[in-house]
Each structure stands twice: as structure tokens, then as C-alpha cells.
């Protein structure tokens, strides 16, 4: 039985944690939230120097050629810090999409740039306030040109290219071109910038075969669900300990509020959800790194458990803080916002629960 990360992986985790504790304290998250920076440039550069964007990129494409497990430990620490960097977009979604569906030429061109942080990629699927489905996606690709509108797109303004979900497949579009207009949009989490992107006869190229877009997207989401789960586990743990620390220090009715069972049981529930999420995330990581047949089920379970754990811990953190937790100056808001952004960006819990049961049914048919 070896259901844990290796000593080397734990060392890498500590290294990234130490860097983020030093260079990405909450005041950095606050700075990006309150300002107009696309992301925290110095934090991103530090992660690039540590090799984080290239962890799971093969060496032949300029990466470190490590396994998904190393990227999972990095995701957990980045989530813990609620770091305002294009990790979920560039390192997870764009990189994994290229690894999954990119042609050799596309991989040769983009993966080294992603590994070195010289390019930032993102994924654009949503077209407003509804879940993208084959019946409602209007963005269309044809004759090497893309037309349509995607909103919200995370890191859209900073990105060098986007993987775009068109009605007829996934396409790769460079964003610094005449046919592309980018307009910032306000979201619930200003620490992660989003924008609207309009494509008007923009030059684009297919990523993967035509008509395969939805199938590829599903596979991409399975991998992303595992990495996101680790980021959510890190964030949930941070929110839980923020609440714990406050409960130890805050006095009411003559004693620390953390001595009341109403608070203790709430925080115990945070811990229970966190450990269920962590265990499911570990299994997702194991399936991802082995190419195991159980990945679709493991990814869905990790996604559901981690989303629940982070949403719960981040809102109960505010509740534990009481009124001060609801102020702009408190540090409780960062996890609340990030928890919801992560919960919705690759499909929310409702969609994943349905997917999980579909997959259970398929597994039972096969068995």
C-alpha cells in the first residue's frame, strides 16, 4: 500500500509552499483584487523560475518531464495561497489541452513557450450566463477563421492564445491579432481577471479533429478536475485554519469562541469534508498518473468532494469571523471568491454529479 506522495514530491511541495509564503502573502492577493494588474507578475515569475508551468510538460518540449503527481502538489500550494496567477488557465487547461489534442507542430510551438512562461494560454468555453451545450454554442470555425463571442474568459487579457470551444470543435487562436477584441468584464473575484473576447474572422487552427471538440473537452475536464481538486483542497485547508486561528483568539461571553461546540462542530465538519476531498483527490492523482481506467469516476468524485469542501470552508470561515469577516479589509473574502470561481469554471457540482452517475452506470454495464 503506497497511497501517498513520495518524499521527493513532498520536498517539492514544501519548496513551493515556502516560496508562496514568502512572496504571495494575502496582501499580494489584495493588491491584485484592488488594482488593475492582470495577475501578480512577480509571483508568476517566481513560479516560472521554480519550473512550475513546465512540471508536467515532457522534456522534449522544454518541460521538466515530471508526472501529474508533482503538478498536483504544486496545485495544492497555489490553491492554499489563493495565488493570483494564471495557473488554472495556462498551466492546467491550456497545457493539458495541447498535450491531449495538439498536433506535433502545435506542441513544438507552444509547449516550450508555456513551460518557460513566455506564453500564457487560456480556455474559452462560456458564452454568457448558461452552461455551454452543443445546442447553444454559437461560436463557429470555418476556413481557418473563427467568429463569435466568448465570455467570461479567465486571464483573457493576459493570454497569448486561447483554446476556444466552437460549435464544430476546439480551435487554437492567437489573441494578439486584428480579428480579436478583448474587453474586461467584472466578476465576483477581481483577483482573477476575466474578459470578453470577440472573434471577427480571426485566424485560428483546429485543435484535434473536427467534431471531436466535446469529447476532447470532457477528457480535458477530467484531468483538470483532479488538478483543480488539489487547488481546492489547499484553499479549503487554508480557510479552515484561518477560521481555527480566529476562533482561538476571539473571546465572547468570557471565553474563546473556539471552546463553544457550535464553532467546534462547524470546524470539525470542515475537516471531515477536507479529508474526504483529499482522499478522493489522491485517487484522482493516482489514476491520472497511471492512465488508469478509473480516471473518469475518480476525477468526478474528486471534483465533487473538493468543490464541496472549499465552498463550505470558505463560507464558514466568514461565519466564524462574524461581522469583521464580512468587511472588505478582512482576508476572508479571497477564499470565498476563489472557491466559487473554481467551482464553476469547469462545470459545477450539479453537472459533475450527473456525470458521475453516468459513469457508474457505464461501469456497471461493462462489469
Amino acid at each position, binding site marked *: *500500500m503506497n497511497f501517498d506522495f513520495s518524499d521527493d514530491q513532498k520536498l517539492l511541495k514544501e519548496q513551493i509552499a515556502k516560496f508562496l509564503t514568502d512572496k504571495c502573502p494575502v496582501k499580494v492577493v489584495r493588491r491584485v483584487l484592488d488594482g488593475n494588474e492582470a495577475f501578480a507578475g512577480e509571483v508568476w515569475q517566481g513560479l516560472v523560475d521554480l519550473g512550475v508551468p513546465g512540471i508536467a510538460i515532457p522534456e522534449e518540449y522544454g518541460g521538466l518531464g515530471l508526472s501529474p503527481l508533482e503538478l498536483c502538489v504544486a496545485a495544492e500550494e497555489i490553491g492554499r495561497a489563493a495565488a493570483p496567477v494564471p495557473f488554472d488557465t495556462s498551466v492546467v487547461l491550456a497545457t493539458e489541452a495541447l498535450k491531449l489534442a495538439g498536433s506535433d507542430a502545435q506542441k513544438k510551438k507552444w509547449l516550450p513557450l508555456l513551460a518557460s512562461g513566455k506564453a500564457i494560454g487560456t480556455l474559452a468555453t462560456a458564452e454568457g450566463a448558461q452552461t455551454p451545450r452543443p445546442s447553444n454554442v454559437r461560436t463557429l470555425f470555418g476556413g481557418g477563421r473563427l467568429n463569435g463571442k466568448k465570455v467570461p474568459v479567465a486571464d483573457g487579457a493576459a493570454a497569448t492564445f486561447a483554446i476556444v470551444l466552437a460549435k464544430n470543435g476546439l480551435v487554437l487562436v492567437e489573441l494578439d491579432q486584428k480579428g480579436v477584441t478583448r474587453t474586461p468584464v467584472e466578476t465576483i473575484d477581481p483577483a482573477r481577471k476575466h474578459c470578453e473576447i470577440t472573434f471577427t474572422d480571426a485566424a485560428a487552427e483546429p485543435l484535434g479533429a473536427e467534431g471531436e471538440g466535446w469529447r476532447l473537452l470532457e477528457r480535458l475536464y477530467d484531468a483538470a478536475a483532479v488538478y483543480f481538486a488539489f487547488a481546492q483542497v489547499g484553499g479549503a485547508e487554508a480557510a479552515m485554519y484561518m477560521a481555527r486561528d480566529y476562533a*482561538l483568539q476571539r473571546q465572547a461571553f468570557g*471565553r474563546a469562541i473556539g471552546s463553544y461546540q457550535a464553532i*467546534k462542530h462547524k470546524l470539525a465538519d470542515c475537516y*471531515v469534508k477536507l479529508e474526504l476531498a483529499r*482522499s478522493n483527490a*489522491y485517487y484522482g492523482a*493516482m489514476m491520472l498518473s497511471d492512465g488508469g481506467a478509473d480516471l473518469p469516476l475518480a476525477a468526478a*468524485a474528486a471534483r465533487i468532494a473538493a468543490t464541496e469542501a472549499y465552498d463550505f470552508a470558505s463560507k464558514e470561515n466568514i461565519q466564524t469571523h462574524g461581522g469583521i469577516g464580512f468587511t472588505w479589509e478582512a482576508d476572508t473574502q479571497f477564499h470565498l471568491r476563489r472557491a466559487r470561481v473554481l467551482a464553476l469554471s469547469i462545470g459545477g457540482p450539479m453537472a*459533475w454529479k450527473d456525470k458521475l452517475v453516468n459513469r457508474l452506470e457505464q461501469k456497471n454495464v461493462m462489469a
Partner: protein
Amino acid sequence: MDFNDTPEEAAFRKEVRTWLDANATRKSDDKAAFRARNDDPNLLAKAKAWQAKKAEAGYARMTWPKAFGGRGASPILQVIYQQEESNYLVPLGFFDIGLGMCIPTMMAYASPEQLNRYVKPALHGEEIWCQLFSEPAAGSDVAGIRTRAEKDGDDWVINGQKVWTSGAHYCDYGIVITRTDPSVPKHQGLTMFFLSMKTPGVEVRPIKQISGGANFNEVFFTDVRIPDSQRLGKVGEGWKAALTTLMNERLAVGLPSGGLDIDELMELARDTDLDDGPAIRNQQVRGKIADWYVQQQGLKLTRYRTLTALSKGQTPGPESSIIKIVAAPKMQDMGAFAMEIMGQGGIMKEQVPHAAGFQAQWIGGAGFRIAGGTDEILRNIVAERVLGLPSDVRVDKDIPFNKMK
């Protein structure tokens, strides 16, 4: 990451399988066998025979020192034995409290002569032990017990009542916590003893549970006289001894096995109509199945994390403290929901496959949420021992027991 055995573990697993194949019958269907086994009237005799065979082969308590019939082995080997044994049709469960909690307490406090007398018969299933702790007025707050032991010459005389004593009706010996000094605060006036359940003045009355079964008992003590040599630990240090026992209880806690779970719930949801088609097409049903699947997997995988630490010879983290907090309400809620899928007919026994099973979980879950640490006490333990939050304010901590209201 992998779920594989180390070479040493694999070799041991093979040895165990060979032994089990030679001595027991492999289960064809886990759950049917599990239920059939529990209905066997000769279960106790069969369990004793199996325990003897197992002890003879050195598999009964592998982590114990060789002098006590163990192998001084790593806990992971004991787990591997249990994993393998669970695939065979063998009667279990009668010895867990005695060997998991009582005998380890004896090992900490009894004399070499006493250990020489009692350990082997317990290990070989010849004598079964129970734990006499809870009382009508002391459940979660077990230090509040009132059963008195008074010194009389070289003897102690015990009067009082215990309750929720699992297995007392078939047990031969027990460890009992008593109050020997009511004039000091409650934790300080306690003393632990062991005694034969056949000692004059001990009376066992089974308690019929709401589930219909009777696994627990009331045990009455009327002028029960035992020698001072049966005292475990010093006079007034019974709480320390009780903590030794309870620490072993936590190590012994596992998942309930053999119950209905996601597979059966899905089977029921496929075979039962709801709305305009099978229940499994209903989005609310799907949502519940997904939530419980995530919990079921989460518990199994959490256990694997603990086993990983054991396999590496490390002390496991606190993650296994979530298991009963999740498993008990899940059992209760899933049972209730399965009944709801069947509509009003869900209240009838044995109408469709699994109906009675889910009803048993629904009603049994109510007990499981209380036994061996309530939902609430377990959350206190997580909050205090894992998260480092302060313990409750104990208003009775410094008051002499006989001055308490």
C-alpha cells in the same frame, strides 16, 4: 502511488491465503453469506472454534509480543490477515472488545501471574471479555459513573449498575470502572478492576433494541465481592486505566462491513419506477447517489492513507477520525432514502430485494450514530485533538463528586 503490497506483505498475504484455503470456505457472495452467518444459532460455538484455530496458527493478534501468543508483527500484517479473512465464511466479532480493549488494559496493569492465567484463554476464544464502563447516568461523560467499590479488609465490595455492555450475556470476564472515593472530583476517585462475570451478585439482563436485536445488556452489581488482587492500577487512578482502554477502542474502530451500499442503491433505483421511468433517471436520485458514492470512496481511500502509514512503519495521521462521523449518518440517511424510492411500500418488509436490508440500515444507523462515541463527541474529538481547539468548559471538574448536583 499504488495499492500494491511490499514483497514482504505479498509473501505474507500468500501465506494467509494458503492457510485460509486449507481451513475455511471462501465466500461466493459476500453479503448473502454475511446475513446467513448472523442467523446461525450455533454462531458462538463456531466462532470460538475458529478463534482457537486462528490463535493456534498465530494469526489472532499478530501485533502482540510473542510471549503473549502474538508475533510482534507490524499492524499492516494484521490488517492484511483481516482483509483476506473477510473473503471467507468465518464467524467473527465476539472477541474484538476483549482482545482489542480489555486484554491490552490487563497487559498494562495486571501481574505476570494474572497475564499467564488470562491472556491465552482469551486469545484462543475460550474466555470472552467485556468492558463495563457506561452507566445510565454516565454515557458520553463516562467519568461520571456512580457504581461504588468499597474496601472491606482485603476485598472490595461493588454495588451499582452498568449499561450498554456489549456481549455481557455470553462473556466470562470483564473490566469494570468504579468509584472508590466520592469525596474528590470525579476523575480522581475512580478505580479499575477485573472480575469474573460469574461472581455472585453479578446479574446480566439483555436490552431489547429498537432494531429488535439484543446485543447490549444491563449489568447489575449487588454486594459483589472481589479481592484487591483484581485491581488494575492504583486506587484513584482508574481514569488513567480507562483512557488506556479507550485509546485501544479508537484503534479498533473500523468500517461496518457487509451492509448495503451504492451498488444496491443503484440496483434498487434501476428496478423501481418513479415519475415516468426508473428512479435512477430522476435528477434528485442521481444527486444523492453521487454524494454517497463520494463519501463511500472517500472513506475507503482515507483508510488506504492510514494503511500506507502503517505499511511504511509510520504513525498514521488523524484522518481516520472522520470515518464514523461520515459512515453512521450515511447509513441512516441512505436507508431512509432507499425506502423513499419505494414509496409507501418502502415500509413493508421483504417486498423487493434489499428492502429489509435498507430498513435495517435506516434503523440501525440510529444506533451506530451513538455507539462507541456519538456524532457529537467525535466532532469534539476532531476539534480538540486535530484542530487544537479548547476543550469544553467543565463546570464539574474541580467539585467533589458527592457535592455535585
